[in-house]
C-alpha cells in the first residue's frame, strides 16, 4: 500500500497545474488567432460570410462546453483520425475561445463611432491601415477588460477536459481522491488552486475596467 503524504498530494496537484496553465495558454492564444480572423470576416465579409460567423458564435454559445468536448473527441475518431485527449482538448477549447473572443472584440470595434471609419477612409486608408492606425488603438482600450475577464473563463473551462481524460488539475484531483479517499481536502485544495490562478486575472480585469471608466 502506497501512502500519500500531504506533500505528495500538493506536489502532484502542482505538477498537474502546469497542464492547466499550458492548456489555458494554448486555448487563449489559439482562440485569439482564430477569433481575430473571424472578426475580420465578420466585419468585411458579405452577408453569407457574416451569417456563417454569427452561426458559429451562436453554436458555441448555445451548447454546453462538455458536449463540444465530446463532439470533438469522438468527431476525430469518426473521421478516422487518431487523437489524444490533449489534442482534442486543445482543438475544442481553441474553437470555444475563438467564438467568445470574436463576440467580445466585435463589440469593442463596433463601439467605435462610424465617423472614425468615414474620416479614415476619406484619407484613402485601406482596411488594414484603418484598423492598424485608427480603429484598433481605440477598440483595444474598450476590449481589454472583457478579454482579460474571459481568460478566467478559459482557465475554468480547462477543468472540463478532465472528462475526456486529459490529466490537468481536476483529473489529477480525481485520481488522487481515488487513491486517498480524502475528497474534502483534495477538492478543497484544487478549488483554492484554481482560485489562485483566476483571482489575479479577475482583479486585473476589474482594475482595467475602472481605469477605462475614468
Amino acid at each position, binding site marked *: 500500500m502506497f501512502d500519500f503524504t500531504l506533500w505528495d498530494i500538493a506536489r502532484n496537484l502542482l505538477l498537474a497545474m502546469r497542464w492547466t496553465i499550458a492548456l489555458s495558454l494554448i486555448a487563449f492564444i489559439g482562440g485569439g488567432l482564430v477569433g481575430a480572423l473571424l472578426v475580420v470576416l465578420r466585419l468585411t465579409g458579405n452577408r453569407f460570410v457574416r451569417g456563417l460567423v454569427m452561426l458559429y458564435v451562436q*453554436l458555441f454559445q*448555445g*451548447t*454546453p*462546453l*462538455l*458536449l*463540444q468536448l*465530446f*463532439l470533438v473527441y*469522438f*468527431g476525430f475518431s*469518426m*473521421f*478516422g483520425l487518431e487523437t489524444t485527449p490533449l489534442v482534442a482538448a486543445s482543438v475544442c477549447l481553441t474553437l470555444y475561445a475563438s467564438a467568445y473572443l470574436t463576440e467580445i472584440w466585435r463589440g469593442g470595434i463596433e463601439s467605435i463611432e462610424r465617423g472614425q471609419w468615414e474620416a479614415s477612409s476619406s484619407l484613402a486608408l485601406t482596411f488594414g491601415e484603418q484598423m492598424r492606425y485608427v480603429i484598433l488603438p481605440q477598440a483595444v482600450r474598450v476590449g481589454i477588460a472583457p478579454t482579460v475577464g474571459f481568460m*478566467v473563463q478559459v482557465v*475554468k*473551462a480547462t*477543468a*472540463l477536459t*478532465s*472528462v475526456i481524460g486529459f490529466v490537468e488539475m*481536476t483529473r489529477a*484531483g*480525481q485520481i488522487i*481522491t481515488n487513491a486517498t479517499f*480524502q*475528497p*474534502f481536502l483534495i*477538492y*478543497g485544495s*484544487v*478549488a483554492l488552486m*484554481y*482560485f489562485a490562478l*483566476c*483571482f489575479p486575472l*479577475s482583479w486585473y480585469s476589474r482594475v482595467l475596467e475602472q481605469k477605462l471608466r475614468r
Partner: protein
Amino acid sequence: MTLDFSVVLKQWPLLLDGMLLTIFLTLFSAVIGTLLGIGCGLVRSKGPTWARWCVGAYVELIRNTPFIIQLFFIFFGLPGLGLKMTALTAAIVANVINLAAYVSEIARSGIEATPDGQIEAAQSLALDRWQIFTRVVLPPALKRVWPTLVGQMVIIMLGSAVCSQISAEELTYAANQIASNSFRNFETYIVVAGLYLLLAVALRRLLNWVGPRFIFGR
C-alpha cells in the same frame, strides 16, 4: 464514415426524461438562485461592513473556481462533514450556489444604479424600508439588468450538463447512456447538442416574455 441517427432517435424516451430533468433543474435553481442572489446583492451594496466582506468572499470564491470542482466538492467532499446528498440534490445545491454568486453581482449593479432621489421620494411618502426595496428599487433594477440575468440563466442551463458527472440523470447523462449502449457517440452528442440549443433558445424566449409581463412591468 456513415452517420446513423435512427438508433439514437429510437431512444427518445430517455432523451425526453433527461430533458425534463434538465428543465426542472434549471428552473428550480434559477428561481432559488435568483432570490438568494438578490439578497446577496442587497447585502453587498447596503449591508454592514462585515456582511459585505463575507458575501464578497463567497462571490469571488465561486466566480473564480470551475463549476465542476464546486460540484465535486459538494457531492464528494461534504459527506466527510456528515452532509450526504443524492446526486440530484447536490446538483441543485451547486447550481443555486453558483448562480446566486453571479446574480449577486448583476443585482448589485442594478440596485446601485437607482437614483437617490427616488429613494428619498419614497421615504417622504412614509414607505418603510422593505416597501421601498420591493416596490421602488427592485423592479427598475431588475429591468435594467434583465438581459444580463437572462444570459446568466442560459449559462446555468448549459453548465448543468456537467451534473452528469455525478450521475444526476439529466440530458447529458441520458446522452452518455445512449452513446454507450448504441456505440454511436458522435450522432448521440450531435442530437443532444441540438436539443440544448433548442432549450437555450426556448429559455431565452420564455424569460424575455416572463420578465416584462410578471416581474418588473413594462
